[in-house]
Protein backbone atom coordinates (compact mmCIF):
# COMPACT_ATOMS: atom_id res chain seq x y z
CA UNK A 1 0.00 0.00 0.00
CA UNK A 2 1.53 3.32 -1.04
CA UNK A 3 1.86 6.11 1.49
CA UNK A 4 -1.06 8.52 1.56
CA UNK A 5 -0.31 12.23 1.23
CA UNK A 6 -2.17 15.00 3.03
CA UNK A 7 -4.56 15.66 0.15
CA UNK A 8 -5.45 11.99 -0.15
CA UNK A 9 -6.07 11.78 3.59
CA UNK A 10 -8.33 14.84 3.45
CA UNK A 11 -10.25 13.32 0.54
CA UNK A 12 -10.63 10.03 2.38
CA UNK A 13 -11.89 11.91 5.44
CA UNK A 14 -14.30 13.94 3.34
CA UNK A 15 -15.84 10.73 2.05
CA UNK A 16 -16.92 9.92 5.62
CA UNK A 17 -18.01 13.49 6.33
CA UNK A 18 -14.99 14.28 8.45
CA UNK A 19 -12.90 17.43 8.26
CA UNK A 20 -9.25 17.14 9.22
CA UNK A 21 -8.09 20.63 10.29
CA UNK A 22 -4.66 21.93 9.30
CA UNK A 23 -3.57 21.62 12.92
CA UNK A 24 -4.10 17.85 12.79
CA UNK A 25 -3.18 16.76 9.29
CA UNK A 26 0.54 16.10 9.84
CA UNK A 27 -0.10 13.96 12.93
CA UNK A 28 -2.94 12.08 11.22
CA UNK A 29 -0.60 11.48 8.31
CA UNK A 30 2.18 10.10 10.54
CA UNK A 31 -0.11 7.86 12.56
CA UNK A 32 -2.27 6.54 9.70
CA UNK A 33 0.66 5.82 7.40
CA UNK A 34 2.56 4.14 10.24
CA UNK A 35 -0.34 1.75 10.78
CA UNK A 36 -0.93 1.09 7.09
CA UNK A 37 2.75 0.47 6.44
CA UNK A 38 3.23 -1.74 9.48
CA UNK A 39 0.28 -4.01 8.72
CA UNK A 40 1.21 -4.11 5.03
CA UNK A 41 4.68 -5.35 5.94
CA UNK A 42 3.27 -8.37 7.77
CA UNK A 43 3.29 -11.41 5.51
CA UNK A 44 2.96 -14.15 8.11
CA UNK A 45 2.38 -17.68 6.93
CA UNK A 46 -1.33 -18.40 6.88
CA UNK A 47 -2.48 -14.80 6.93
CA UNK A 48 -4.04 -15.04 3.48
CA UNK A 49 -6.16 -18.09 4.23
CA UNK A 50 -7.16 -17.89 7.87
CA UNK A 51 -10.51 -16.42 8.90
CA UNK A 52 -11.04 -14.39 12.05
CA UNK A 53 -12.42 -16.47 14.92
CA UNK A 54 -14.93 -15.37 17.53
CA UNK A 55 -13.38 -13.69 20.56
CA UNK A 56 -15.10 -15.90 23.13
CA UNK A 57 -12.79 -18.52 24.54
CA UNK A 58 -14.28 -21.73 25.84
CA UNK A 59 -12.87 -22.81 29.17
CA UNK A 60 -11.25 -26.20 29.00
CA UNK A 61 -12.78 -28.30 31.74
Amino acid sequence: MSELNDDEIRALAKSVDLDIPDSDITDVNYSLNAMLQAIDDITSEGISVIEPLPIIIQKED
Partner: protein
Amino acid sequence: MSNQELVFLSAANLASEIKNKQISPVEAVEAYLDRINHVDPKLNAYITVLADKALEAAHQSESDITSGVNKGSLHGVPVAVKDQIYTKGIRTSSASKIRSGFVPDFDATVVNGLKRSGAIILGKLNMTEFAMGDPITSAFGVTHNPWDLDRNPGTSSTGSGAATASFMCASSLGEDTGGSIRGPAANCGLVGIRPTWGRVSRYGVDGASWSLDTIGPISRTVKDCALTLGAIAGFDQNDPYTRNIPVPDYAACLTGDVKGLKIGLVKEFLDTEVMGVTQAVRQGVMDAAELLASLGAEVEETSLPLAPVSGVASRIISAVERSSLHPEWLRDKPDDFHHNTRVAFSVGELIPSQVYYKAQKLRTLVRKQTLKALEKFDVLAMPVASEPATIMNLKPGIESKEAAVNALTEGSYRGLFSMVSGPAMSICCGFSTEGNNKLPLALQIAGRPYDESTLMNVAYAYEQNTTWHLERPPL
Protein backbone atom coordinates in the same frame (compact mmCIF):
# COMPACT_ATOMS: atom_id res chain seq x y z
CA MET B 1 -1.22 3.04 64.83
CA SER B 2 -1.11 6.59 63.45
CA ASN B 3 -3.02 7.70 60.36
CA GLN B 4 0.30 8.18 58.60
CA GLU B 5 1.23 4.54 59.21
CA LEU B 6 -2.23 3.07 58.60
CA VAL B 7 -2.19 3.84 54.87
CA PHE B 8 0.95 1.74 54.41
CA LEU B 9 -0.88 -1.45 55.39
CA SER B 10 -1.77 -3.77 52.54
CA ALA B 11 -5.47 -4.03 51.76
CA ALA B 12 -5.43 -7.60 53.08
CA ASN B 13 -3.84 -6.60 56.37
CA LEU B 14 -6.12 -3.59 56.72
CA ALA B 15 -9.16 -5.83 56.16
CA SER B 16 -7.84 -8.20 58.81
CA GLU B 17 -7.26 -5.38 61.32
CA ILE B 18 -10.78 -4.07 60.67
CA LYS B 19 -12.26 -7.54 61.05
CA ASN B 20 -10.47 -7.91 64.39
CA LYS B 21 -11.66 -4.45 65.47
CA GLN B 22 -8.09 -3.16 65.78
CA ILE B 23 -8.81 -0.42 63.24
CA SER B 24 -12.20 1.07 62.44
CA PRO B 25 -13.34 1.73 58.85
CA VAL B 26 -13.80 5.40 59.84
CA GLU B 27 -10.15 5.61 60.91
CA ALA B 28 -9.13 3.99 57.64
CA VAL B 29 -11.12 6.38 55.48
CA GLU B 30 -9.92 9.41 57.46
CA ALA B 31 -6.32 8.27 57.09
CA TYR B 32 -6.67 7.93 53.34
CA LEU B 33 -8.44 11.28 53.02
CA ASP B 34 -5.57 12.90 54.94
CA ARG B 35 -3.10 11.20 52.64
CA ILE B 36 -4.98 12.38 49.54
CA ASN B 37 -5.02 15.97 50.84
CA HIS B 38 -1.29 15.78 51.46
CA VAL B 39 -0.08 13.93 48.38
CA ASP B 40 -2.54 14.40 45.53
CA PRO B 41 -1.64 18.03 44.81
CA LYS B 42 1.70 16.64 43.58
CA LEU B 43 0.27 13.77 41.54
CA ASN B 44 -3.25 14.73 40.36
CA ALA B 45 -4.38 11.12 40.55
CA TYR B 46 -7.97 11.84 41.54
CA ILE B 47 -10.64 13.55 39.47
CA THR B 48 -13.26 13.30 42.22
CA VAL B 49 -12.71 12.58 45.92
CA LEU B 50 -15.86 11.31 47.61
CA ALA B 51 -14.99 12.42 51.15
CA ASP B 52 -18.52 12.74 52.52
CA LYS B 53 -19.89 9.60 50.86
CA ALA B 54 -16.84 7.58 51.90
CA LEU B 55 -17.14 8.71 55.51
CA GLU B 56 -20.85 7.92 55.49
CA ALA B 57 -20.11 4.45 54.14
CA ALA B 58 -17.35 4.03 56.71
CA HIS B 59 -19.71 4.78 59.59
CA GLN B 60 -22.15 2.18 58.22
CA SER B 61 -19.29 -0.25 57.82
CA GLU B 62 -18.21 0.36 61.40
CA SER B 63 -21.76 -0.12 62.61
CA ASP B 64 -21.89 -3.42 60.72
CA ILE B 65 -18.69 -4.60 62.36
CA THR B 66 -20.02 -3.66 65.77
CA SER B 67 -23.14 -5.70 65.00
CA GLY B 68 -21.06 -8.68 63.99
CA VAL B 69 -21.68 -8.25 60.27
CA ASN B 70 -18.73 -8.64 57.93
CA LYS B 71 -19.75 -8.14 54.33
CA GLY B 72 -16.72 -9.72 52.77
CA SER B 73 -13.02 -9.79 52.09
CA LEU B 74 -12.70 -6.02 51.69
CA HIS B 75 -15.00 -4.92 54.50
CA GLY B 76 -14.14 -1.34 55.40
CA VAL B 77 -11.22 -1.11 52.96
CA PRO B 78 -11.00 2.20 51.01
CA VAL B 79 -10.55 1.70 47.27
CA ALA B 80 -10.85 3.89 44.18
CA VAL B 81 -11.92 3.34 40.58
CA LYS B 82 -10.97 4.71 37.18
CA ASP B 83 -13.28 7.47 35.99
CA GLN B 84 -14.73 5.51 33.07
CA ILE B 85 -16.43 3.17 35.57
CA TYR B 86 -19.99 4.23 36.39
CA THR B 87 -20.84 5.34 39.89
CA LYS B 88 -24.45 6.17 40.66
CA GLY B 89 -24.99 9.88 41.17
CA ILE B 90 -21.29 10.66 40.72
CA ARG B 91 -19.66 12.22 37.66
CA THR B 92 -18.04 9.68 35.38
CA SER B 93 -16.07 11.68 32.85
CA SER B 94 -13.63 9.33 31.09
CA ALA B 95 -11.29 12.27 31.75
CA SER B 96 -12.91 14.14 28.87
CA LYS B 97 -14.55 17.50 28.45
CA ILE B 98 -17.25 15.83 26.37
CA ARG B 99 -18.32 13.54 29.25
CA SER B 100 -17.53 15.97 32.06
CA GLY B 101 -21.22 16.44 32.86
CA PHE B 102 -22.19 12.78 32.71
CA VAL B 103 -23.66 11.44 35.95
CA PRO B 104 -24.78 7.78 35.71
CA ASP B 105 -27.94 6.67 37.46
CA PHE B 106 -26.55 3.24 38.32
CA ASP B 107 -23.35 1.64 39.53
CA ALA B 108 -21.22 -0.47 37.21
CA THR B 109 -21.33 -4.18 37.98
CA VAL B 110 -17.74 -4.02 39.21
CA VAL B 111 -18.61 -1.19 41.62
CA ASN B 112 -21.49 -3.28 42.94
CA GLY B 113 -19.02 -6.13 43.38
CA LEU B 114 -16.66 -3.97 45.40
CA LYS B 115 -19.50 -2.73 47.58
CA ARG B 116 -20.81 -6.26 48.11
CA SER B 117 -17.37 -7.27 49.37
CA GLY B 118 -17.52 -4.39 51.85
CA ALA B 119 -15.13 -2.00 50.12
CA ILE B 120 -15.61 1.75 50.45
CA ILE B 121 -15.28 3.87 47.31
CA LEU B 122 -12.94 6.77 48.05
CA GLY B 123 -13.16 8.43 44.67
CA LYS B 124 -12.80 8.46 40.91
CA LEU B 125 -9.34 8.28 39.41
CA ASN B 126 -7.77 10.26 36.62
CA MET B 127 -6.98 8.56 33.34
CA THR B 128 -6.14 9.48 29.78
CA GLU B 129 -8.98 10.93 27.76
CA PHE B 130 -11.29 8.10 26.66
CA ALA B 131 -8.57 5.64 27.76
CA MET B 132 -6.25 6.54 24.90
CA GLY B 133 -2.59 5.67 25.29
CA ASP B 134 -1.18 9.16 25.65
CA PRO B 135 -0.43 10.38 29.21
CA ILE B 136 -1.08 14.08 28.58
CA THR B 137 -4.65 14.02 27.30
CA SER B 138 -6.82 14.15 30.43
CA ALA B 139 -9.18 17.12 30.53
CA PHE B 140 -8.45 17.19 34.27
CA GLY B 141 -4.70 17.60 33.91
CA VAL B 142 -1.70 15.31 33.73
CA THR B 143 -1.16 12.62 36.39
CA HIS B 144 2.42 12.23 37.60
CA ASN B 145 4.42 9.13 38.45
CA PRO B 146 5.11 9.01 42.22
CA TRP B 147 8.59 7.57 41.60
CA ASP B 148 9.57 10.54 39.42
CA LEU B 149 7.09 13.35 38.85
CA ASP B 150 8.39 14.01 35.34
CA ARG B 151 7.70 10.49 34.18
CA ASN B 152 4.73 8.65 32.72
CA PRO B 153 2.71 6.84 35.41
CA GLY B 154 1.58 4.40 32.74
CA THR B 155 -1.48 4.63 30.54
CA SER B 156 -4.37 4.69 30.37
CA SER B 157 -5.18 4.02 34.04
CA THR B 158 -2.80 6.77 35.12
CA GLY B 159 -4.60 7.66 38.35
CA SER B 160 -5.10 4.01 39.35
CA GLY B 161 -1.35 3.47 39.21
CA ALA B 162 -0.33 6.74 40.83
CA ALA B 163 -2.93 6.66 43.63
CA THR B 164 -2.25 3.05 44.59
CA ALA B 165 1.54 3.44 44.53
CA SER B 166 1.39 6.60 46.63
CA PHE B 167 -0.90 5.05 49.26
CA MET B 168 -3.91 7.21 48.37
CA CYS B 169 -6.12 4.11 48.22
CA ALA B 170 -5.68 0.55 49.40
CA SER B 171 -6.43 -0.93 45.98
CA SER B 172 -7.93 0.29 42.72
CA LEU B 173 -9.62 -0.68 39.49
CA GLY B 174 -8.29 0.06 36.03
CA GLU B 175 -9.38 -0.90 32.55
CA ASP B 176 -7.05 -2.62 30.11
CA THR B 177 -7.57 -2.45 26.35
CA GLY B 178 -4.01 -2.72 25.06
CA GLY B 179 -2.17 -2.67 28.38
CA SER B 180 -3.82 -0.01 30.52
CA ILE B 181 -3.67 -2.08 33.72
CA ARG B 182 -0.28 -3.68 33.17
CA GLY B 183 1.39 -0.45 32.02
CA PRO B 184 0.51 1.64 35.10
CA ALA B 185 1.28 -1.31 37.38
CA ALA B 186 4.69 -1.64 35.73
CA ASN B 187 5.55 2.07 35.75
CA CYS B 188 4.45 2.50 39.36
CA GLY B 189 5.93 -0.71 40.85
CA LEU B 190 2.60 -2.42 41.51
CA VAL B 191 0.71 -5.63 40.85
CA GLY B 192 -1.94 -5.44 38.15
CA ILE B 193 -3.89 -8.13 36.37
CA ARG B 194 -5.76 -8.02 33.10
CA PRO B 195 -8.22 -10.88 33.63
CA THR B 196 -9.43 -13.15 30.88
CA TRP B 197 -11.79 -11.30 28.54
CA GLY B 198 -15.20 -12.41 29.82
CA ARG B 199 -14.09 -12.98 33.42
CA VAL B 200 -15.19 -9.52 34.63
CA SER B 201 -18.29 -7.64 33.54
CA ARG B 202 -17.89 -4.49 31.49
CA TYR B 203 -21.46 -3.38 32.19
CA GLY B 204 -21.48 0.25 33.23
CA VAL B 205 -18.02 1.03 31.92
CA ASP B 206 -17.45 3.56 29.14
CA GLY B 207 -16.05 1.38 26.38
CA ALA B 208 -12.83 1.92 24.54
CA SER B 209 -12.71 -1.17 22.34
CA TRP B 210 -15.47 -3.73 22.74
CA SER B 211 -13.42 -6.79 21.84
CA LEU B 212 -10.38 -5.87 23.92
CA ASP B 213 -11.62 -4.04 27.04
CA THR B 214 -11.23 -5.74 30.42
CA ILE B 215 -11.61 -4.42 33.96
CA GLY B 216 -9.13 -5.47 36.61
CA PRO B 217 -7.31 -4.53 39.80
CA ILE B 218 -4.15 -2.53 40.35
CA SER B 219 -2.86 -3.24 43.84
CA ARG B 220 0.26 -3.12 45.97
CA THR B 221 0.55 -6.85 46.66
CA VAL B 222 -0.50 -10.05 44.94
CA LYS B 223 -2.91 -10.91 47.74
CA ASP B 224 -4.54 -7.48 47.47
CA CYS B 225 -4.87 -8.06 43.75
CA ALA B 226 -6.44 -11.47 44.37
CA LEU B 227 -8.94 -10.08 46.86
CA THR B 228 -9.89 -7.21 44.54
CA LEU B 229 -10.30 -9.49 41.54
CA GLY B 230 -12.38 -11.87 43.61
CA ALA B 231 -14.74 -9.02 44.43
CA ILE B 232 -15.43 -8.12 40.80
CA ALA B 233 -15.14 -11.38 38.83
CA GLY B 234 -18.03 -13.50 37.67
CA PHE B 235 -20.99 -13.86 35.35
CA ASP B 236 -23.21 -10.86 34.78
CA GLN B 237 -26.42 -11.13 32.80
CA ASN B 238 -25.92 -7.49 31.76
CA ASP B 239 -22.70 -8.34 29.93
CA PRO B 240 -23.43 -11.16 27.47
CA TYR B 241 -19.72 -11.89 27.06
CA THR B 242 -19.14 -12.86 30.68
CA ARG B 243 -19.06 -16.61 31.20
CA ASN B 244 -21.08 -18.45 33.78
CA ILE B 245 -18.27 -20.44 35.35
CA PRO B 246 -17.19 -20.55 39.00
CA VAL B 247 -14.85 -17.90 40.35
CA PRO B 248 -12.13 -19.47 42.49
CA ASP B 249 -11.18 -18.10 45.88
CA TYR B 250 -8.14 -16.42 44.40
CA ALA B 251 -6.55 -15.54 47.74
CA ALA B 252 -6.86 -19.14 48.91
CA CYS B 253 -5.02 -20.27 45.77
CA LEU B 254 -1.90 -18.34 46.81
CA THR B 255 0.26 -21.18 48.12
CA GLY B 256 3.56 -19.97 46.74
CA ASP B 257 4.31 -23.49 45.55
CA VAL B 258 5.63 -23.44 41.99
CA LYS B 259 7.49 -26.76 42.05
CA GLY B 260 7.24 -28.46 38.68
CA LEU B 261 5.37 -25.56 37.11
CA LYS B 262 6.44 -24.98 33.51
CA ILE B 263 7.32 -21.37 32.66
CA GLY B 264 8.10 -20.32 29.08
CA LEU B 265 10.32 -17.27 28.65
CA VAL B 266 9.26 -15.54 25.43
CA LYS B 267 12.55 -14.97 23.68
CA GLU B 268 11.37 -12.37 21.16
CA PHE B 269 10.55 -9.92 23.97
CA LEU B 270 14.00 -10.40 25.49
CA ASP B 271 15.85 -9.80 22.21
CA THR B 272 17.38 -6.33 22.21
CA GLU B 273 17.57 -6.30 18.41
CA VAL B 274 14.00 -7.42 17.75
CA MET B 275 12.18 -5.37 20.39
CA GLY B 276 14.74 -2.93 21.74
CA VAL B 277 14.42 -4.16 25.32
CA THR B 278 16.84 -2.33 27.62
CA GLN B 279 19.49 -4.19 29.57
CA ALA B 280 17.94 -3.21 32.91
CA VAL B 281 14.53 -4.64 31.98
CA ARG B 282 16.02 -7.75 30.43
CA GLN B 283 18.15 -8.41 33.50
CA GLY B 284 15.20 -7.87 35.85
CA VAL B 285 13.13 -10.45 33.98
CA MET B 286 16.00 -12.94 33.71
CA ASP B 287 16.73 -12.62 37.43
CA ALA B 288 13.06 -13.21 38.20
CA ALA B 289 13.07 -16.31 36.02
CA GLU B 290 16.16 -17.57 37.81
CA LEU B 291 14.54 -17.04 41.19
CA LEU B 292 11.40 -18.91 40.11
CA ALA B 293 13.62 -21.74 38.84
CA SER B 294 15.34 -21.86 42.22
CA LEU B 295 11.91 -22.34 43.77
CA GLY B 296 11.34 -25.43 41.66
CA ALA B 297 9.72 -24.08 38.51
CA GLU B 298 10.92 -25.46 35.20
CA VAL B 299 11.91 -22.41 33.17
CA GLU B 300 12.62 -22.75 29.48
CA GLU B 301 12.96 -20.31 26.60
CA THR B 302 10.20 -20.43 24.01
CA SER B 303 9.47 -18.66 20.77
CA LEU B 304 6.36 -16.79 19.65
CA PRO B 305 7.40 -15.52 16.20
CA LEU B 306 4.28 -13.38 15.81
CA ALA B 307 4.66 -11.65 19.17
CA PRO B 308 6.53 -8.61 17.77
CA VAL B 309 3.70 -7.74 15.37
CA SER B 310 0.85 -8.10 17.84
CA GLY B 311 1.07 -4.41 18.74
CA VAL B 312 0.28 -3.35 15.19
CA ALA B 313 -2.82 -5.51 15.00
CA SER B 314 -4.09 -4.64 18.48
CA ARG B 315 -3.65 -0.92 17.86
CA ILE B 316 -5.51 -1.09 14.55
CA ILE B 317 -8.37 -3.06 16.09
CA SER B 318 -8.68 -0.72 19.07
CA ALA B 319 -8.40 2.40 16.90
CA VAL B 320 -11.27 1.31 14.67
CA GLU B 321 -13.49 0.07 17.48
CA ARG B 322 -12.86 3.12 19.65
CA SER B 323 -13.64 5.66 16.95
CA SER B 324 -16.78 3.75 15.95
CA LEU B 325 -18.41 4.20 19.36
CA HIS B 326 -19.37 7.87 19.07
CA PRO B 327 -18.61 9.15 15.57
CA GLU B 328 -20.87 12.15 16.19
CA TRP B 329 -18.50 13.60 18.78
CA LEU B 330 -15.71 14.03 16.26
CA ARG B 331 -18.06 15.85 13.90
CA ASP B 332 -20.07 17.89 16.39
CA LYS B 333 -17.50 18.67 19.10
CA PRO B 334 -14.03 18.34 17.60
CA ASP B 335 -12.63 21.15 19.73
CA ASP B 336 -13.70 19.39 22.92
CA PHE B 337 -11.08 16.68 22.37
CA HIS B 338 -7.42 16.95 23.30
CA HIS B 339 -5.43 17.30 20.08
CA ASN B 340 -3.82 13.86 20.45
CA THR B 341 -7.14 12.14 21.11
CA ARG B 342 -8.78 13.86 18.14
CA VAL B 343 -5.93 12.70 15.91
CA ALA B 344 -6.23 9.13 17.18
CA PHE B 345 -10.02 9.07 16.69
CA SER B 346 -9.63 10.53 13.18
CA VAL B 347 -7.11 7.86 12.25
CA GLY B 348 -9.47 5.17 13.53
CA GLU B 349 -12.15 6.40 11.15
CA LEU B 350 -9.81 6.34 8.15
CA ILE B 351 -8.47 2.80 8.46
CA PRO B 352 -9.74 0.81 5.46
CA SER B 353 -11.96 -2.19 6.15
CA GLN B 354 -9.51 -4.65 4.60
CA VAL B 355 -6.82 -3.43 7.01
CA TYR B 356 -9.10 -4.00 10.01
CA TYR B 357 -9.94 -7.43 8.59
CA LYS B 358 -6.25 -8.29 8.18
CA ALA B 359 -5.64 -7.21 11.79
CA GLN B 360 -8.42 -9.55 12.92
CA LYS B 361 -6.89 -12.41 10.94
CA LEU B 362 -3.55 -11.66 12.51
CA ARG B 363 -5.22 -11.72 15.91
CA THR B 364 -6.43 -15.23 15.19
CA LEU B 365 -2.94 -16.38 14.19
CA VAL B 366 -1.37 -14.77 17.24
CA ARG B 367 -3.94 -16.34 19.53
CA LYS B 368 -3.52 -19.81 18.03
CA GLN B 369 0.25 -19.58 18.29
CA THR B 370 0.17 -18.39 21.90
CA LEU B 371 -2.46 -20.87 23.08
CA LYS B 372 -0.42 -23.63 21.44
CA ALA B 373 2.58 -22.57 23.55
CA LEU B 374 0.36 -22.63 26.62
CA GLU B 375 -0.38 -26.31 25.98
CA LYS B 376 3.26 -26.93 26.88
CA PHE B 377 3.75 -24.20 29.49
CA ASP B 378 1.60 -23.32 32.48
CA VAL B 379 2.51 -19.66 32.13
CA LEU B 380 4.59 -17.45 29.86
CA ALA B 381 6.95 -14.77 31.16
CA MET B 382 8.23 -11.62 29.51
CA PRO B 383 8.70 -7.89 30.19
CA VAL B 384 5.75 -5.49 30.30
CA ALA B 385 7.68 -2.86 28.36
CA SER B 386 11.06 -2.35 26.78
CA GLU B 387 12.09 0.25 29.35
CA PRO B 388 11.03 1.76 32.68
CA ALA B 389 8.74 4.81 32.82
CA THR B 390 9.84 7.46 30.35
CA ILE B 391 9.87 11.25 30.69
CA MET B 392 6.49 12.63 29.60
CA ASN B 393 6.49 14.80 26.50
CA LEU B 394 3.99 17.49 27.45
CA LYS B 395 3.89 18.94 23.94
CA PRO B 396 0.91 17.67 21.91
CA GLY B 397 1.56 15.94 18.60
CA ILE B 398 3.48 13.06 17.06
CA GLU B 399 7.20 13.50 16.56
CA SER B 400 7.49 11.62 13.28
CA LYS B 401 6.13 8.67 11.35
CA GLU B 402 9.05 6.61 12.68
CA ALA B 403 8.02 7.47 16.22
CA ALA B 404 4.51 6.26 15.40
CA VAL B 405 5.89 2.99 14.01
CA ASN B 406 8.04 2.52 17.12
CA ALA B 407 4.99 3.03 19.34
CA LEU B 408 3.22 0.22 17.48
CA THR B 409 6.14 -2.12 18.06
CA GLU B 410 6.34 -1.18 21.75
CA GLY B 411 2.62 -1.93 22.02
CA SER B 412 3.37 -5.59 21.28
CA TYR B 413 4.58 -6.23 24.84
CA ARG B 414 1.08 -5.72 26.15
CA GLY B 415 -0.97 -6.05 22.96
CA LEU B 416 -0.09 -9.73 22.61
CA PHE B 417 -2.25 -10.81 25.53
CA SER B 418 -4.94 -8.29 24.75
CA MET B 419 -5.23 -10.10 21.41
CA VAL B 420 -5.09 -13.57 22.97
CA SER B 421 -7.88 -12.62 25.42
CA GLY B 422 -6.22 -14.64 28.17
CA PRO B 423 -5.07 -13.28 31.53
CA ALA B 424 -1.81 -11.36 31.94
CA MET B 425 -0.34 -9.57 34.92
CA SER B 426 2.46 -7.27 35.89
CA ILE B 427 4.60 -7.45 39.02
CA CYS B 428 7.57 -5.36 40.05
CA CYS B 429 10.87 -7.22 39.51
CA GLY B 430 13.40 -4.65 40.61
CA PHE B 431 14.46 -1.08 40.10
CA SER B 432 16.76 0.79 37.78
CA THR B 433 18.39 4.06 38.70
CA GLU B 434 17.86 7.10 36.48
CA GLY B 435 19.56 10.19 37.87
CA ASN B 436 18.52 10.51 41.49
CA ASN B 437 15.42 8.36 41.11
CA LYS B 438 14.74 4.67 41.29
CA LEU B 439 12.35 3.43 38.62
CA PRO B 440 10.39 0.17 38.88
CA LEU B 441 11.03 -2.70 36.46
CA ALA B 442 8.28 -5.19 35.68
CA LEU B 443 7.78 -8.83 34.90
CA GLN B 444 4.73 -9.90 32.88
CA ILE B 445 3.21 -13.31 33.58
CA ALA B 446 0.50 -14.58 31.25
CA GLY B 447 -1.48 -17.76 31.11
CA ARG B 448 -4.35 -19.87 29.93
CA PRO B 449 -7.85 -18.41 29.66
CA TYR B 450 -9.64 -18.30 33.01
CA ASP B 451 -6.52 -19.49 34.85
CA GLU B 452 -5.85 -16.28 36.75
CA SER B 453 -5.12 -18.37 39.87
CA THR B 454 -1.96 -19.90 38.45
CA LEU B 455 -0.64 -16.52 37.30
CA MET B 456 -1.22 -14.96 40.66
CA ASN B 457 0.34 -17.91 42.46
CA VAL B 458 3.51 -17.58 40.38
CA ALA B 459 3.57 -13.87 41.15
CA TYR B 460 2.95 -14.63 44.83
CA ALA B 461 5.84 -17.10 44.95
CA TYR B 462 8.08 -14.44 43.45
CA GLU B 463 6.81 -11.71 45.77
CA GLN B 464 7.30 -13.82 48.89
CA ASN B 465 10.96 -14.24 47.99
CA THR B 466 11.72 -10.61 47.12
CA THR B 467 11.31 -7.26 48.83
CA TRP B 468 10.49 -4.99 45.89
CA HIS B 469 6.87 -4.59 47.01
CA LEU B 470 8.07 -3.05 50.27
CA GLU B 471 9.76 -0.10 48.54
CA ARG B 472 8.02 3.28 48.76
CA PRO B 473 8.18 6.15 46.29
CA PRO B 474 9.99 9.30 47.49
CA LEU B 475 7.03 11.55 48.23
